[in-house]
């Protein structure tokens, strides 16, 4: 048992470190390091431009999408090399936020289902960040039950005509392309009538509207489709086989190992270390220490769980299912941490303005953003179902709509 690199890994790490040292946008390092949960903002710079420039630089030197094949803009690197890169990239990795969906989900889906010519055309600029992609799955009536989506695609000659609405689309407003899951046959059970496409987000009839979130910010969008035309050549997979295609996409969503999840613990620990309560330093208060210890072991548990997965990768094994707990644990923890940090501030905890609030309002921002983290990318409840079914082998839910034609499924709970 040790934390050492193999000689090969050490050589790769040294190479990555040297290149990052020589090329990373150092002027933003401090700001990036400090930003924790939520959006990363840079003072006096447009983060999208900084992010795109960094991505392009990496791609030109062969450091983008490391695990992708070289011909599609990657490096053909091993999974462990990808993890080492992430460790070395450190705070600069936060600049990759806008590419996560494209690199993590759209790219692998294109790789599995697009034609060779399309792959060579679309994947390299996706890897280099010159083109940004989004993923158009969720709908107002289909979130956790994504197969319940209603956006229609109807064949007309060699084209498909799309009408409907998507929601919670990250980055739709700056995306160039998207992968889109549609309903092509409403007369069969819901999983059997779906088809996947990719499309140009500048196509006529596509309208992107930002959603104002409960936090007051706007990170996501609604996307409306009105008679949008997509050529049949941009279909991914067979007609009505879109569910299986989407499983490839979603499987990739949860594959990101070693990226590290935010728990809010380091921030809380620092805060308690400096906070003075009426009776003395917060960190010397028994109840504060008890809370902190409980959060500490969750945070360290997640950190070492991730190290176990990295070790499996290092040995060329597939990591076990342990890593599926990361999002579930961190999501609710960050919310609890935020509430507790506010509680420690007493009545003044209500203030969220950077000039009045403790730590420039970091915990208030965390509090308001946290509900979203427990929902996005699979709700806590869906994550528990996944652990129960795929890890523990418990039976799937009884699905009352499994054999019902989609257009006969009730759409309202109460009349």
């Amino acid at each position, binding site marked *: *048992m*040790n*934390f*050492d*690199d193999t000689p090969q*890994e050490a050589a790769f790490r040294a190479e990555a470190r040297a290149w990052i040292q020589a090329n990373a946008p150092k002027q933003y390092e401090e700001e990036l390091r400090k930003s924790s949960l939520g959006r990363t903002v840079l003072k006096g710079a447009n983060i999208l431009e900084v992010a795109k420039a960094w991505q392009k630089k990496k791609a030109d030197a062969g450091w983008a999408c490391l695990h992708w094949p070289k011909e599609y803009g990657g490096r053909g690197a091993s999974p462990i090399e990808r993890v080492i890169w992430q460790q070395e990239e450190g705070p600069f990795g936060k600049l990759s936020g806008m590419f996560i969906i494209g690199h993590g989900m759209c790219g692998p889906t294109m790789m599995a289902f697009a034609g060779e010519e399309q792959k060579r055309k679309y994947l390299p600029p996706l890897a280099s960040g010159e083109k940004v992609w989004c993923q158009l799955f969720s709908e107002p009536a289909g979130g956790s039950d994504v197969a319940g989506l209603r956006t229609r695609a109807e064949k007309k000659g060699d084209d498909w005509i799309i009408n409907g609405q998507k929601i919670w689309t990250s980055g739709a407003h700056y995306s160039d392309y998207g992968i889109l899951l549609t309903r092509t046959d409403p007369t069969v059970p819901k999983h059997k009538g779906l088809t996947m496409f990719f499309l140009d987000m500048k196509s006529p009839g596509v309208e992107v509207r930002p959603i104002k979130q409960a936090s007051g910010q706007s990170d996501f969008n609604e996307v409306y489709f009105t008679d949008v035309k997509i050529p049949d050549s941009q279909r991914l997979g067979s007609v009505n086989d879109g569910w299986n295609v989407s499983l490839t996409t979603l499987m990739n969503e949860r594959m990101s190992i070693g990226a590290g999840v935010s728990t809010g613990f380091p921030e809380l*620990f620092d805060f308690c*270390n400096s906070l003075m309560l009426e009776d003395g330093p917060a*960190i010397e208060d*028994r109840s504060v*220490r*008890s809370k*902190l*210890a*409980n959060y*500490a*072991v*969750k945070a*360290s*548990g*997640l*950190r*070492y*769980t991730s*190290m*176990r997965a*990295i*070790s*499996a990768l*290092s*040995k060329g094994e597939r990591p076990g299912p*342990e890593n599926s*707990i990361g999002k*579930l*644990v961190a999501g609710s923890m960050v919310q609890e941490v935020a509430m507790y940090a506010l509680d420690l501030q007493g009545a003044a905890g209500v203030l969220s303005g950077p000039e009045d609030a403790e730590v420039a309002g970091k915990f208030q921002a965390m509090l308001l953003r946290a509900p979203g983290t427990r929902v996005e990318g699979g709700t806590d*409840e869906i*994550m*528990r*179902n996944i*652990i*129960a*079914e795929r*890890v*523990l*082998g*418990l*039976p*799937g*839910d*009884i699905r009352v709509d499994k054999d019902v034609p989609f257009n006969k499924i009730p759409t309202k709970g109460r009349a």
Partner: protein
Amino acid sequence: MNFDFSDEQKQMRDAARKFLAEKCPPKAVREVLDGKAPYDKELWKGLAEMGFLGVAIPEEFGGAGAGHLELCVIAEEMGRANAPVPFSSTAYLAAEALLLAGSDAQKQKWLPKIASGEVIGTLALFEGKGNPSPKAIKLQASSGTLNGVKKPVPDGAIADFAVVAARTGSTERDSDISLFLVDLKAGGVEAKSLTNVDPTRGQAELTFKNAKAEPLGAVGEGWSILTQVLDRAAVLLAFEQVGGSDRALEMGRDYALDRIAFGRPIGSFQAVKHMLADMYVSATLARSNCYYGAWALSTNASELPEAAAAARISATQAFQHCSKNNIQVHGGMGFTWEFDCHMYYRRANATALTLGSLSYWEDQLIDRMRKKNAA
């Protein structure tokens, strides 16, 4: 990075699991639970023959000379099987104290007999309620004899010798505490079994009346040695707790798959599934914290104090969580004497207090993190 046990260590774990599945089925645990024997003597002998009792004891002292990682995998299996033997008292507390502070003669005297299963050892630390602290130690040492009362002492009624924490000065300072070795069969010590929540692991009151004792380690160094012994034992016991957590989770999972209610397996209800998923989460977090503890223990890293506290807290929580919800998944049957669920529930809650309570270790963890932060 190789943050995992080696193939050889995993093989040893498999061997221990196989051995315990055969020699320590729930029926054997029940013999002790029902008070028919104070511990499973046959199993104890078998563990010695397998080389498990002395796995971390150097060969020169009659052990297998493997190491602490090997002891961790054995510990996990002991917890999984709920083994009714004084393994933790002997191998984690007494043997570790001897290894850390014993003179060559003391090691020669006791360690080979530990490895061969001839003696049972323990640590006599507590004196009534409260957590480890120098000021709670009243038992007096003077001119080679001890006077006072220790309770609860794990496995105290069946132990042959004990490492005893005693007072050699009158202040609350650490330096007024020293450790002593006492042969419990040599007279001067009276042992009384105490009823406790886990009858498969005995607790006793030891009364010392002019009991002969020899110092273990330098006089005045007792508290410092004790702290290290407790940290080491915390990691090892945490592996037992993780083994128990996994077993309780498996029992709950199996029952949820087999038990039909409302016309379907109860494991298809989300209320039950989610409970089991949460048990998996705590068991996994605990296991990962324990791995870090194992690394720190086996390399004697400066991170050991922090790693041990984290492993201890995480594993205590996981075992309590998994064992109580295992009963919940079983419903009414889980609350019968006949079903094995309560044995894990008892063990989880007893283990949670050995070495000091959860709140004590929480306090320790924060202290140690602050120290590291300040450094």
